[in-house]
């Protein structure tokens, strides 16, 4: 079995907060890239549809929640399990120079992409140096 995927971390369940049903909450693996316009977050949330994602920004804390749709093939019993299913939750603290009205989120193939543009005044301005 060959495996070239460079996987640094596994998806791990979070210990807090607990759920009332006892179901697990997982911490989605995240890539964060800073671009010229702002910051892009890519969160891995397999089994979560676009309408089941909840992104909120409150007091600089960006909270991302995803409700999973469990895959249970009909008339079959689980014989071997390597991964667990559960909801996803993760929160990030942001600096206050993001424009909350322009935050954009989209889901494709189980990956949530959140783009956070920086406010216009926070973008670095390039000052041209004139030769005298």
């Amino acid at each position, binding site marked *: 079995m060959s*495996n070239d995927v460079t996987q640094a971390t596994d998806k791990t369940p979070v210990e807090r907060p607990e759920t009332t049903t006892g179901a697990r909450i997982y911490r989605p693996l995240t890539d964060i890239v800073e*671009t010229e316009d702002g910051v892009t977050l*890519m969160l891995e949330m*397999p089994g979560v*549809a676009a309408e089941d994602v909840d992104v909120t920004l409150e007091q600089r804390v960006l909270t991302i929640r995803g409700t999973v749709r469990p*895959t249970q*093939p009909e*008339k079959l019993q689980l014989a071997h399990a390597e991964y667990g299913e559960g909801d996803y939750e993760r929160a990030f603290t942001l600096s206050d120079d993001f424009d909350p009205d322009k935050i954009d989120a989209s889901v494709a193939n*189980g990956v949530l992409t959140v783009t956070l543009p920086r406010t216009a005044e926070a973008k670095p301005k390039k000052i041209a140096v004139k030769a005298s």
Partner: protein
Amino acid sequence: MLNPYYTRRSDPFALMQSMLRDFDRRIPTRAVQPVFPTVNVWQGDEAVAITAELSGIDPADIDISVKDNVLTLSGERKAPEVPEGARWHRNERGYGKFTRTVRLPFAASDDKVEARMANGVLRIVVGRPEEDKPKKIEIKAT
């Protein structure tokens, strides 16, 4: 050190057990070689299903093949395209090529394999061939 287990002097192994438990918690057990993708296998009388979490992978980049009783799942997860001059803050997700083989409890034929992908979760259902199913033998009255 105030250890709740140590107060139970009646059990001489209590302290050692509690230390071992602390040790286990601090050093998370992980496979030496991480397996990707992780699969769940479901079994029933009529079929076997394999589910795998393959988020961020285009269904066109996944190859599934069945030969006798071995199912091979391979593909590639491409790294996201980032504009020039972008800076990575965090990189927790993995990228690259992968191959995974799963041994099925029966030899399957290609036409009985069905794969579907929804929200980054792949589900492969392999039907059990007629000749493999248990046959009911009727007892004849003499």
